[in-house]
């Protein structure tokens, strides 16, 4: 009896082993014969010898992500154009994406291609020797390379090696405001910090929420409001100097002033009372219902505003940036933003896989893709993209105008490593609920600078 069972188990496992052996060659033989008709019609010489290439791709363009519909459409085009590429595509919601990816990295099992964030995360991965650069790809495609706005490549460049190209740009600090409410209380859009305070107190007095805000996920206050407030006080070089330990520190008075101003507007009642229990999507309701005069959010909110804001409100929505601060060292004309995420290549991939992934990177960022960004209301990362104003939504046009007028400066959570980001996010939340003082937060940050 026992022997019979063992025999049976062995026999079954043998079956699997054989299946494993025969699987690959069979599929390699099959595919060319399956697809020739398509290839002849679509592609020239490059695919004369279509070799089956398989690679895994992890990205976070899924669910409510702004790029989800774009990615879906573009990936199906990609599959159509390159039928010899077999892509194992894993879509992971943004909140879990970094955790999953970094856990995988710790285990030494990164996928072949994956989305990385610019600046701090790219530096982390590149210096740990996990990424293959795309310098030669850029050399080979000068036209593609030169189309980009500089930050779309620069922010993925470490020590002269570029690792990815951003799928558009993310502006993080757009003030969406309801012009009708400003008019109703005889206010004009603030041009200085004093005016901003005046606007806030006027709205509070009249029972209007000055700024709709939801900080439950901890990053929105830092990314959408504080990054730019800090820049207004400190200027753009300062943060680089702090991180490079180049004569500047988080405990410098200008940074503390920025934190104090943030504390001050919170105490004035700038935000809805339940900002701590709402997330950055729920907060938009206050603005859409006309209960809040302003909302500070990133360009990722634009599709949502276009889709969900009521028509009568939409006509009154204007886009602007935070005013300059009197006495601040920052340029009052800049706004905060970064390159969007991009696809990077695992160092361990084979040359064929690398070529395939490079095709994908180009395909997702070339001029045709840039046109599609515009269709999906994503800010483009090419310099010259003509936007069809008759088709585009007025709010998207306002967004592109805003971007063209104001140069971008970095966002804190993009420039800081994960530890400092955690401290600044928690610190700002602590200041908002009165549990921490600006000096304490500044000290904690400085203590963690390495």
């Amino acid at each position, binding site marked *: 009896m026992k022997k019979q069972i063992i025999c049976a188990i062995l026999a079954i496992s043998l079956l699997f082993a054989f299946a494993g052996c025969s699987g690959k060659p069979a599929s390699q033989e099959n595919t060319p014969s399956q697809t020739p008709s398509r290839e002849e019609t679509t592609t020239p010489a490059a695919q004369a010898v279509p070799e089956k290439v398989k690679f895994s791709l992890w990205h976070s363009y899924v669910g409510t992500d702004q790029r989800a519909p774009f990615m879906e459409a573009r990936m199906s085009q990609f599959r159509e154009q390159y039928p010899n590429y077999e892509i194992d595509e894993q879509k992971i919601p943004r909140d879990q994406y*970094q955790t999953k990816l*970094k856990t995988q990295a*710790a285990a030494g099992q990164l996928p072949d291609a994956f989305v990385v964030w610019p600046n701090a995360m790219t530096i982390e991965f590149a210096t*740990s020797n996990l990424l293959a650069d795309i310098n030669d790809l850029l050399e080979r495609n000068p036209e593609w390379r030169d189309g980009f706005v500089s930050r779309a490549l620069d922010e993925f460049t470490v020590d002269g090696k570029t690792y990815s190209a951003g799928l558009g740009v993310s502006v993080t600090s757009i003030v969406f405001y309801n012009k009708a409410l400003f008019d109703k209380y005889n206010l004009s859009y603030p041009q200085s910090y004093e005016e901003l305070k005046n606007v806030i107190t006027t709205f509070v007095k009249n029972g209007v929420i000055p700024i709709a805000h939801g900080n439950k996920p901890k990053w929105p206050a830092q990314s959408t409001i504080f990054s730019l407030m800090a820049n207004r006080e400190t200027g753009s070089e300062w943060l680089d100097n702090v991180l490079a330990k180049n004569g500047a520190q988080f405990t410098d008075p200008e940074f503390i002033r920025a934190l104090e101003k943030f504390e001050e507007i919170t105490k004035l009642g700038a935000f809805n009372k339940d900002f*701590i229990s709402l997330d950055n999507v729920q907060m938009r309701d206050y603005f859409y219902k006309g209960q809040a005069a302003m909302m500070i959010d990133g360009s990722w909110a634009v599709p949502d505003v276009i889709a969900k804001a009521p028509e009568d409100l939409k006509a009154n929505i204007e886009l602007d940036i935070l005013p300059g601060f009197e006495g601040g060292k920052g340029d009052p004309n800049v706004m905060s933003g970064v390159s969007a995420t991009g696809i990077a290549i695992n160092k361990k991939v084979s040359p064929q896989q690398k070529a395939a992934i490079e095709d994908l990177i180009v395909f997702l960022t070339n001029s045709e893709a840039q046109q599609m960004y515009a269709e999906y209301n994503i800010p483009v990362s090419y310099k010259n993209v003509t936007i069809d104003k008759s088709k585009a939504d007025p709010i998207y046009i306002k967004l592109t105008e805003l971007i063209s007028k104001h140069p971008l400066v970095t966002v804190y959570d993009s420039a800081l490593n994960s530890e400092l980001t955690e401290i600044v996010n*928690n610190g700002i*939340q602590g200041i908002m609920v009165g549990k*921490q003082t600006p000096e304490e937060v500044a000290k904690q940050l400085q203590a963690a600078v390495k």
Partner: protein
Amino acid sequence: MELISRNRKYIFIGLFPAVALYIIFVIYPIVRSFFYGFYEWNGLGEPIYIGLKNFQDILKDNIFWLSFKNNIFVVVASILGQIPLGLFLAIVLNSKLKGAGFFRSVLFIPMILSTVVVGLLWSTLLNYQMGVVNYILQSLGLEKLALDWLGNPDIAMYTVCAVIIWQFFSLYMIIFLAALQNIPNDILEAANIDGANELRKFFSITLPMLWPTVMTAVVLCISGSMRSFDLVYVMTQGGPANATELMATYMYNKTFSVYKYGYGSAVSLVIFVISFGLILISQSLMRKKNSDR
């Protein structure tokens, strides 16, 4: 005993697969993660050996000690909340109440729900703006009591504890119910004949006979609360401003959102030592109580 020694070989063979799996998938990773506690590692590059620095940092880490304090608070709240509540309901259900079976099932529901469901359920109910709890309070004219239950750092910890108690009291209720049914009826009948009232019977008969069960429940309660993580993670993620941070959520944050694997491992080692110490203390207390009698 002789039987055991005679069959030692077979016992070993029989246990081997389970023990091997346990060692590979439980013991080894635990020991391994303790080693990481002596390294600085972000998960990407090579780990750097830094000796006891992580542990020194933990001693100075205010947020860790805040989370420790919160954890002890959860332990105390669970012991003082879940056990008396469970005991009380068990006694009520054990009396010949009509529909006891129905109430028993209903009261047991929180226990069988997944923690994530419970967390989301209560986050919605307790929502400051749209939550049912505040709606009821407002319609009763108690606007002042309609608080931002999970958003106010001064009360969030109490709210979280209340939800923890709500979810787990029924476990203790069932344990006590089973123990109550083991109390022989003749003792209670004898007490009846002696003219003891209900209160007297409870303190002189029921409670002493339940005492070993109560102590078991306390140990369960301590170990359960020390490792509580999921409810807090779903409801507040340790926020606002670390007000509801527990040791486990702190360890998770340090490891998986700040990517300090070394530091996270060191924190988990400290949690291990603290929990182990608490369990040892409670067990030695229990043994003392047992030998007293």
